């Protein structure tokens, strides 16, 4: 893919605090992005709230703003710096959310800032659990039984499905915070109530809990020419049911045969292509330890 020479100055949104779902790899990815941009003589403006990262070292960017990662401060930086483009896809969930908010507040349009990397529409498709599920079904990719809940009254259907335990995942929160596993109707109601309050979109997904399945991830990249590659895969040491933040992950996978490895790799590439992602993406899959079901 050739270099886009219309970009002279690019603003990068940094990784912010390092917590579950917003881990140190985003600092690494963001630092590499800054380096790659400067290698091509593009001026880099960095916005990051976390001074204790590698990317906020003095030689990483041309100008560094250590400010809160919210619309108010980001708008002021944009107003002052007038970047040609905004690169939000290397700052983890924080960067994606902030870019979405900046676009919705009309800031990007007002200052004529191009959103680089994955289009917002693709981010929305990947983040909105209902849209994502519909897309997976259209691709023929298996997804567990699930229900989108925006109102407590909608819990009647999953509660009467006979599927237990169920997992509750709020949309648009970091590392799925605010979610939990429900073994009965009381737990389901309580966790859903908490999740709805924490979700930016007031939406949670209730789905079959794949306890004991292998947890496998692929780091995938795609460019606008539709070249897509997997950087690596990873296998969680503990199965589904143990939070990644309480476990360790090993790259590459250790207990997958080549057939399983390639089956999940092909699925990851189909998914990133169908979403239209331009940039990096983490695809998380779960594999039955006793069959090829995933």
């Amino acid at each position, binding site marked *: 893919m050739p270099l886009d020479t219309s970009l002279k100055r690019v603003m990068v949104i940094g990784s912010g605090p390092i917590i579950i779902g917003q881990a140190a790899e985003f600092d690494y990815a963001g630092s590499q992005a800054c380096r790659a941009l400067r290698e091509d003589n593009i001026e880099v403006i960095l916005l990051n709230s976390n001074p204790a990262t590698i990317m906020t070292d003095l030689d990483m960017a041309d100008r560094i703003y250590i400010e809160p990662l919210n619309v108010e401060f980001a708008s002021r930086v944009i107003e002052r710096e007038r970047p040609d483009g905004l690169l939000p896809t290397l700052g983890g969930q924080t960067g994606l959310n902030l870019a979405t908010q900046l676009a919705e507040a009309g800031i990007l349009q007002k200052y004529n800032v191009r959103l680089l990397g994955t289009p917002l529409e693709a981010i929305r498709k990947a983040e909105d659990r209902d849209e994502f599920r519909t897309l997976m079904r259209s691709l023929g990719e298996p997804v567990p039984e699930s229900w989108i809940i925006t109102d407590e009254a909608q819990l009647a259907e999953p509660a009467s499905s006979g599927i237990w335990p169920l997992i509750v995942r709020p949309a648009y929160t970091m590392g799925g915070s605010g979610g939990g596993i429900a073994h009965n109707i009381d737990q389901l109601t309580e966790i859903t109530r908490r999740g709805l309050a924490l979700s930016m979109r007031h939406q949670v997904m209730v789905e079959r809990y794949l306890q004991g399945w292998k947890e496998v991830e692929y780091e995938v990249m795609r460019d606008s020419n*539709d070249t897509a590659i997997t950087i690596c895969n990873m296998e969680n040491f503990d199965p589904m049911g143990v939070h990644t933040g309480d476990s360790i992950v090993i790259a*590459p996978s250790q207990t*997958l045969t*080549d057939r399983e*490895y*390639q089956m999940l790799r*092909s699925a990851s590439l189909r998914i990133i292509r169908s979403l239209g992602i331009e940039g990096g993406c983490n695809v998380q899959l779960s594999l039955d330890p006793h069959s090829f079901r995933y």
Partner: protein
Amino acid sequence: MKALLVLEDGKTFEGISLGVTGNTQGEVVFNTGMTGYQEILTDPSYAGQIVTLTYPLIGNYGINEDDGESRDVQVRGLIVHETSDMPSNWRSRKTLHAYLTEKSIVAIQGIDTRALTRHLRGDGVKMGTITTNETAEEAISRLQASPRYDSVELNRLVTTENTYLWNRQSTSPDVYDPTSKPTEKFRVAVIDCGVKYNILRSLALLNCETVVFPCTATHAEILSCNPHGVMLSPGPGDPSHLGYLVETVRRIVGIKPIMGVCLGNQILGSVFGSRTFKLKFGHRGSNHPIKDLNTGKVYITSQNHGYAVDPDALKDGMEVAHINLNDGTVEGLKHKELPIFSIQYHPEASPGPKDSMFFFEEFVRSFT
């Protein structure tokens, strides 16, 4: 038990015996794939070679009953850093060590495979031997007395003895009856220089039954099964031994669509005026980027070849279609007018990425 790996240049690595004891010799090569050791061990293109797996821990998912790529283990020997004796996978039936022992393969573990790989990369692949009962000096003199990898035609050793049939129901070669009607929509004749089963499985999924001929079959024998297309298989060794096969294929050009894979690419190159040369350390692994010159697309491919086609001498309408992005060598050919093309890498994957499986579809489309 102690084992030695001795290279022809005298470089010696001390390790621990794996598989059976004894000694073995072959060309020492390396594969960088992180998965797929069972497929690699059973790939006939590794005949005559001792394979080093650069991934440091091998055998973690054991050995199963269905991931073999031919009827037997094909490598001459195996070199790994560390094996696992506690496999974890639902299909696993035995450990790597048990499998190698059952198949009487001499192998070695506990050596610095990274140092070995760097040596082969810097200096080129070379003959070597693994021994559990000789000194390094004894091993070297035995190695010097044995034939070099390039000096023998290995294809006749790995090709099928009898013509056989493979269709969607097959899990191993079925009996071929020349008077039978095709069992699938299409029939493909495969010239077996060391075919991998996944080529046959991939074609079967596209409604093709395959009739697999020994590499010494004549063009008349091959055409007598009335195929829709002819597939030139991968295989081991120096393609310059295969002058007879080049002549066979020359007589099929213009009569049937032809697809070549790996060695098949080199054969087609020779049919169209080119020759092959030996690569310094070959391409063996599951992450080789290639560029399709027609579409500009990049695929990540599975590769296993030690020779490449010289692009300069190609003639009579044959053109370079794909190149390797690591070293720029030829990775595929396509004829300007005739339905003839070939791929130097492995669209059938197994092991490796399935990015280029669609070439089988392209082949089948040329039947109608």
